């Protein structure tokens, strides 16, 4: 069935290295996305119509644009247009952060609009500035509501990192294809064993993360 391929040489280690590459990109991108998402999300709730339209346009644009095109534009486009030679990993982190920030901003907007106006007013009437109000009163409250959802974003991001093979990053799926190909003659049906392992690897990484998000959701639900 093709499982024997995995124990040849350091194939198993290479698979884990590939998974690590995918995880590293996802985690860095999510952290950036949470930070920028908070800012963009807050901007989205401002009365100023211009800011709102721009951030809304950004969200729709990123949601609609296929990620592969973004990868090509950031990785190849920037070299052609501006002469900057970006590494594949930096480009993929930029693209996934752009995507993550858009998704996060939408979550933040939803969370901010669900905070009753009285929280803002009682904070202002104590003399806190609007910046202090956001930092000490509003954001800590939406973080509780948002963190579980942003953890879900990590699993979605991990699953879509397989796209980065288009710009030369060897992640877990690419390693799988390499192993299948390398053993084309010696074990022709290696594909099933390898894909079953990849299925399992993605599961044991993403499932605990979604369990964590459900646990946090329950704990902070009050």
């Amino acid at each position, binding site marked *: 069935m093709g499982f024997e391929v995995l124990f040849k040489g350091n194939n198993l280690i290479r698979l884990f290295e590939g998974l690590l590459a995918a995880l590293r990109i996802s985690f860095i991108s999510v952290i950036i996305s949470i930070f920028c998402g908070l800012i963009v999300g807050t901007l989205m709730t401002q009365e100023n119509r211009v800011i709102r339209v721009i951030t809304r346009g950004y969200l729709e644009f990123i949601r609609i644009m296929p990620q592969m095109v973004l990868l090509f534009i950031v990785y190849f486009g920037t070299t052609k247009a501006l002469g900057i030679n970006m590494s594949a990993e930096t480009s993929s982190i930029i693209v996934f952060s752009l995507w993550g920030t858009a998704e996060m901003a939408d979550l933040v907007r939803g969370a901010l609009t669900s905070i*009753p106006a009285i929280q803002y007013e009682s904070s202002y009437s104590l003399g*806190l500035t609007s910046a202090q109000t956001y930092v000490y009163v509003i954001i800590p409250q939406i973080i509780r509501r948002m963190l579980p959802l942003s953890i879900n974003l990590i699993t979605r991001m991990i699953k879509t990192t397989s796209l980065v093979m288009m710009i030369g990053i060897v992640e877990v799926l690419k390693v799988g294809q390499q192993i299948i190909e390398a053993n084309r003659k010696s074990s022709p049906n290696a594909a099933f064993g390898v894909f079953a392992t990849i299925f399992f690897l993605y599961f044991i990484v993403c499932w605990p993360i979604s369990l964590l998000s459900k646990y946090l959701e329950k704990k902070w639900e009050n």
Partner: protein
Amino acid sequence: MEEILSVQNLCKKYDELVVLDGIDLSIKKGEVVVIVGPSGCGKSTFLRCLNGLEDIQDGKVIHDGEVINPCSGKLNKVREKIGMVFQSYELFPHKTVLQNMLLAPLKVKKADKKQSEKEALELLDRVGLLSKKNNYPRQLSGGQKQRVAIMRALMMQPDILLLDEITAALDPEMVREVLDVVISLAKEGRTMVIVTHEMSFARAVADRMIFFDEGRIVEEGSPEEFFVHPKTERLQKFLQSFSYAR
């Protein structure tokens, strides 16, 4: 007594709807002013104009020689001196009672932590909630939360305290707990402007009564004049709506 807050020809409009139509009022230091009136007469909005939560279309609110202007940057400085407690007794849900009390003094006044904590504990003890200092708001009753909200406002040592129908959303037996606190503050000589429906409480605590109707001050006077010999016919009708006879 020296004037602490002066309201001159205050007008407030939502597009065409006139909510406050030229209010003039002067509040002395240590005075307790109670505002009553039918719902929708603009009394709560008036209170929110005093600390800049609502912008005003005309007229001025002067406190300590400074004009309160909602669009100016220094608004939060003004609000340090004018405390307000709302009808919905929402505390900051993610902070304990003590943290709720300490947030503003530490962040706004940059006060010393130990000193503020001592003050906070004293205030909590005064309203019998010292044991609740490390509880979260969700573990408190409405009445308890409202009392903490009042103490939280007091932590800023405001010159004036605005109370906007703070008992409207409470069960009867909790109303008592909260109003006793307000009465004790009045005895201490706190300057307060109170909007309420609790007539007997108003009569007990007020130095001066004001009757709002359709965005104007209709009648003003000491509690005795106000309740015993109401002059205007509208005030008489309003007071009757509170008494029941079989």
